[in-house]
């Protein structure tokens, strides 16, 4: 009798455990980008740029309110829209790739690996993790400003996407060139979409 009861309980709990399993998503590189913003000439203006190539995965367990994020950004793909040197010896984007800034020859990638995902109600609230840039790893918190899961309107594939922001001090990662003319504080804006595997 007790065996039957146990089996019945297991059978009853099975659908719950399936629905609580983390879902894996692969980041869509064509709709996922990391943008950045930094003060120029002591705050005269805020200059913006982005990395064109981002890849990674995230998991989501809506029931257990847990998840993870693992992103790799190709620093070689940095662009600020100034990639034509014109009459100058080099363009700004070329300068950003040198050891003065992202040193892409030695450090071609920047990674973010989450350590904790916090929910605000049913939605993602913030993602704590470690950002590795220029070989230095520091904790960073990303605030999720928008998050949504739905089937793709055409392909009907399940997908999730949203936007997150964070702030880092580039000097913490050894990127000290040009401070304070080029600001130390780097604001990160991340847009991400991912398809369920």
């Amino acid at each position, binding site marked *: 009798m007790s065996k039957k009861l146990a089996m019945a309980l297991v059978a009853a709990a099975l659908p719950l455990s399936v629905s609580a399993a983390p879902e894996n998503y692969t980041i869509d590189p064509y709709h996922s980008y990391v943008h950045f913003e930094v003060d120029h000439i002591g705050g005269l203006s805020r200059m913006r740029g982005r990395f064109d190539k981002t890849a990674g995965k995230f998991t989501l367990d809506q029931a257990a309110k847990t998840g993870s994020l693992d992103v790799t950004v190709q620093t070689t793909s940095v662009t600020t829209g100034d990639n034509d040197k014109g009459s100058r*010896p080099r363009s700004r984007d070329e300068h950003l790739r040198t050891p003065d800034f992202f040193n892409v020859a030695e450090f071609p990638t920047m990674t973010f690996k989450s350590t904790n995902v916090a929910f605000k109600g049913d939605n993602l609230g913030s993602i704590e993790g470690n950002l590795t840039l220029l070989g230095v790893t520091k904790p960073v918190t990303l605030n999720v400003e928008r998050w949504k899961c739905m089937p793709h309107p055409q392909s009907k594939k399940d997908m999730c996407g949203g936007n997150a922001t964070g702030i880092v001090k580039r000097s913490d990662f050894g990127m000290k060139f040009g401070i304070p003319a080029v600001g130390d504080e780097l604001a990160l804006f991340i847009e991400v979409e991912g398809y369920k595997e």
Partner: protein
Amino acid sequence: MQGGVAPFVVGLVVTLLLQSVRLGGLAVVAAFATAVYFVAGFTFSPLTATRKIVLLALAAPVIGIFIDFGVKTTRAGAGMLAFAAGVAALWIFWPVLSQKEMAQIWLIGGAAAIAVAFMVGFGQMFLADHAVRAGAAGLGAGLGVGVAAILAASATYGLYGIALGAGSGAFLLVQMLRGKPGTAGATFMLPAMLIAGLVAGGAMILAQLPWYSVLVLALVPVGARLPVPARARVWQQAMLLSLYTFIIAGIACYLAWHS
């Protein structure tokens, strides 16, 4: 300020203080260290190529002093120094070179190793015993590498090169004002040529300095070996030799501009 004035002042003070004990040549590494302090600081983790250059730059005068005061300089010794400098260049840049195709490894790795080895070997063999020529070589190589690095999109390497030129200029200026040559030796020549060669190599491998510009920069010390009128005064010799080195450095910068 970071790459020019502060390193020049430090170089001048070190030359004035230490010239009497034959260590005025430390001006060049003191000037370089001043620029490193202001630009990036003395952090060595993770050990990047740039930080390896700084480490070797700080170690070079120790070897230089040992050579000047401990062992007699010979051609074989200069050759060994040159070989070691070339190997050091490969050690510094190998993590980046190893990610490139074989043809690129041979081209830019070879250019860096040859440039550094030639500058160190030539400087030690033909210039170290002539403080005016040594100072002119350091001045031309430092400023040339600095300007070329800026044109190659690396301001950090640009400032390091200019600081090297500033320190060498201070060392040269003291001789010009005193009217008699000082003492260079390996204490001056080894760090001056090693840093110049490695910074040029870094600007090529990590930024965009073309390999042929690096090879021309390596010839700058040859300009400081050219003849000057035997009866010329020290300041006249310094001016003329510096002009020779500037011409060669100028060609390298022109090539970097138009690459």
